[in-house]
C-alpha cells in the first residue's frame, strides 16, 4: 500500500470520527498556535529593541563609571574633566565629539499640570552626538552652559501633557523640582521606544543641572556619549578613550573602573536577552504541544483497541505488519499535521492580536511570524504525531490476525 493511499485512508478515518478528531487536533492546534505566537512576539520584541538601539547611531560610544565584570577597589567616577580630556586630538584622533550627561527622574510642572520626566543635564554637543532635532526654538548655547542659565528644552510628549500643544511653547515657563525654567525649544518626536524615548525628556544645561537639580560629587557625570569620526573607527575610538581614562584614573592593568559600550554591544546584549526570552516563551508553549502529542497517543491507542477486528481483517486479507504500521502512523501524523496547519493560523492571529494590544497599550510591538517558525511548527507537529503514534501503531501491527479477528 503506498503512502498516498495511506493518506487518503487516514483522512477518511479522521473524517468519519469528526468530534473525536477535532478534540484530538485541538491539543496540537493550541500547542502550535502558542509556539508560533510566542516566537513571533519574541522576534517582534527583538526587532523593536534592536531597531531602537540601532536608531541611536552606529558611531556612538557610551562611557559609564564602574565595571560589572571585575571588582575594582577605590573606583573613580567619570567627571566632566574626563569628558573634556577625551576630546584631546593627539590622544584620541578618532573622537569627533563628546557629550557628558547627568540624568534624573524629576517632577516637571506647568500651571496645574505635572508629570514625571527624565531630566538630563547636557552640553552643547549633545544635539549633534545624539542627533536631536528641534521642532521649534533653538538648542543651548555655550553661554547657557557657562552661565548656568535656567532654560530647558522639552520633549514632544511633555509639551503635549503640560501645555496641550507642541508649537508655540517656546517662552513658557516650566517648573522642574519646583524651580522655574524658561522653555527655549521643543524636541522633535522620535516615537516611543524603550531606550531612546526622548519624547518624555526635559533637557537642561549640564552646569545648571549639577548646581540646581541633581547633586553629584565633584563634577561627576552619569554617562559620556562619544561620537567616533565614522562607524569604522568606533573600536579605535573606544581604545583611545579607555587609554585616556586609565591614565587619568591611574587604574591597574585589567582593573578599569569604567565601561565603554558601543551600540553594537547594546544590540548584542539586547539580542541575547530577547533570545532567552523567546526560548523561554517558546519552551512553555512547547509543553502544550507535548501535551497535545500525548492526547494523540491516547486517542490512537483507543482507536487501535476499537479497530482490533478491522486490523485482524486487514491482516487476513494480506496486510503486512508494515502496512498496518503505516496506516496508523499516517493517521496520527495527519491528525497532528492538520492541527499544526490550523495552529499556524491561530498563532498568526494571536500574534497579530498581541501586537494590536501592545500598540494600544503604548509599547509598539510588531510580532513577526517567520517562515522558519512556520516550518519548525509544521515539522515539529508532524514529528510529534509520528513519535506519539509510534507506540499505538506498533501495538496494532503486532496483533496476531487470529486474535484480532476473534476480538469483538
Amino acid at each position, binding site marked *: *500500500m*503506498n503512502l498516498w*493511499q495511506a493518506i487518503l485512508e487516514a483522512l*477518511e*478515518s479522521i473524517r*468519519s470520527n469528526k468530534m473525536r478528531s477535532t478534540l484530538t487536533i485541538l491539543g496540537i492546534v493550541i500547542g502550535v498556535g502558542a509556539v508560533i505566537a510566542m516566537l513571533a512576539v519574541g522576534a517582534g520584541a527583538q526587532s523593536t529593541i534592536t531597531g531602537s538601539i540601532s536608531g541611536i547611531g552606529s558611531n556612538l560610544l557610551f562611557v559609564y563609571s564602574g565595571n560589572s565584570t571585575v571588582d575594582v577597589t577605590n573606583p573613580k567616577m567619570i567627571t566632566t574633566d574626563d569628558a573634556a580630556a577625551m576630546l584631546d586630538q593627539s590622544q584620541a584622533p578618532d573622537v569627533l565629539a563628546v557629550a557628558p550627561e547627568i540624568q534624573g527622574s524629576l517632577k516637571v510642572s506647568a500651571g496645574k499640570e505635572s508629570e514625571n520626566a527624565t531630566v538630563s543635564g547636557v552640553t552643547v554637543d549633545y544635539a549633534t552626538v545624539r542627533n536631536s532635532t528641534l521642532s521649534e526654538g533653538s538648542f543651548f548655547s555655550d553661554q547657557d552652559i557657562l552661565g548656568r542659565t535656567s532654560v530647558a528644552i522639552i520633549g514632544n510628549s511633555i509639551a503635549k501633557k503640560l501645555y496641550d500643544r507642541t508649537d508655540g511653547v517656546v517662552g513658557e515657563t516650566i517648573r522642574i523640582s519646583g524651580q522655574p525654567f524658561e522653555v527655549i525649544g521643543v524636541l522633535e518626536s522620535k516615537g516611543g521606544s524603550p531606550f531612546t524615548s526622548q519624547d518624555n525628556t526635559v533637557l537642561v544645561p549640564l552646569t545648571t543641572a549639577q548646581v540646581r537639580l541633581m547633586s553629584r560629587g565633584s563634577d561627576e557625570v552619569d554617562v559620556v556619549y562619544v561620537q567616533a569620526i565614522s562607524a569604522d573607527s568606533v573600536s579605535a575610538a573606544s581604545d583611545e578613550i579607555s587609554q585616556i581614562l586609565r591614565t587619568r584614573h591611574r587604574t591597574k592593568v585589567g582593573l578599569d573602573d569604567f565601561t565603554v559600550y558601543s551600540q553594537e554591544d547594546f544590540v548584542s546584549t539586547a539580542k541575547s536577552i530577547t533570545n532567552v526570552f523567546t526560548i523561554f516563551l517558546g519552551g512553555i508553549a512547547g509543553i502544550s504541544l507535548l501535551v497535545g502529542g500525548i492526547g494523540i497517543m491516547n486517542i490512537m491507542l483507543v482507536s487501535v483497541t476499537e479497530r482490533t*477486528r*478491522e486490523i485482524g*481483517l*486487514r*491482516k*487476513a*486479507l*494480506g*496486510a*503486512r*505488519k*508494515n*502496512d498496518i504500521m503505516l496506516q496508523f502512523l499516517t493517521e496520527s501524523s495527519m491528525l497532528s499535521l492538520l492541527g499544526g496547519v490550523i495552529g499556524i493560523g491561530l498563532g498568526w492571529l494571536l500574534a497579530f492580536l498581541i501586537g494590536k494590544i501592545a500598540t494600544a497599550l503604548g509599547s509598539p510591538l510588531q510580532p513577526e511570524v517567520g517562515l522558519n517558525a512556520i516550518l519548525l511548527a509544521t515539522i515539529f507537529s508532524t514529528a510529534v504525531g509520528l513519535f506519539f503514534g509510534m507506540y499505538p501503531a506498533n501495538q496494532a501491527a503486532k496483533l*496476531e*490476525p*487470529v486474535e484480532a*479477528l476473534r476480538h469483538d
Partner: protein
Amino acid sequence: MKEAVIQVTDLKKIYQMGSVEVKALAGVSFNIYWGEVVAIMGPSGSGKSTLMNLLGCLDRPSSGSYILDNEQVADLNDDDLALIRNQKVGFVFQSFNLLPRQTALANVELPMRYAGVPQAERTIRAKAALEMVGLGERVHHKPTELSGGQQQRVAVARALINDPAIVMADEPTGNLDSKSGKEIMELLLGLNRDKGTTIIIVTHDPGIGAQAQRVIRLRDGVLEEEKA
C-alpha cells in the same frame, strides 16, 4: 493421481490456559487436493475453527507439518504469511467482516491494495467481481445499506479478487436466511465448477456438508473419519 494442495501431518495446536493445556487440535493428518470442495464439520469445540485458522495461515501450529502448495508454512515469516493470505487464500467469514465505512467497491479493492495493484486496474477488477456475484448495481453502497446476503456476496467477491487457489469459508451461511445461504453456496460451488478453485467450508450444517465432495469430521481435536 490428484495433486495435493494442502498436506497436513500430525498438526497440533495447544493453548496454554493458565496451568492447563488445552489441545484444540491434537494431531490431525490429511490431504486436500486441487479443485476439491471439502467440508470440515464437527460439533462446536471440536477444533474446526482452529484448523481453519491454521490452514488459512492466520495462526501458527504448535507442532506438526503443513505444506501449502509445496511450501512448508512453518518456514515462512510473518510477511510471507501475509503474502499467502493475500494471493493464495481467500476468506469468507461468518460475520462478513466488511469495513463498515467503505463502499462495496472499496471493500473488494482492499486485498488488491495490499497486493500493490494500481488504482485504475483495481476499480475495473473490483467492479467485475461485484458483477459476477450479482451486485453490479450496488458497487457504491456501504455495508449498512446492503442485506446480509448481499454483504456476504461482497465478501465472496473480495475473497476472489486476487484469484486465489483456495477459498476458505468459515460458516459462510451461519448468519444468513436459508435463501441467501443457498445463493452463497451456489456462488462458491459455481466458482469451483468454473475456475476449479479449491473450496474449504467449515460448517456444522449437514445440509452444507452434503454439498461437499468430501467431509472431514473433527471431534475433540482429532479426525473422526473421512468420508470419501
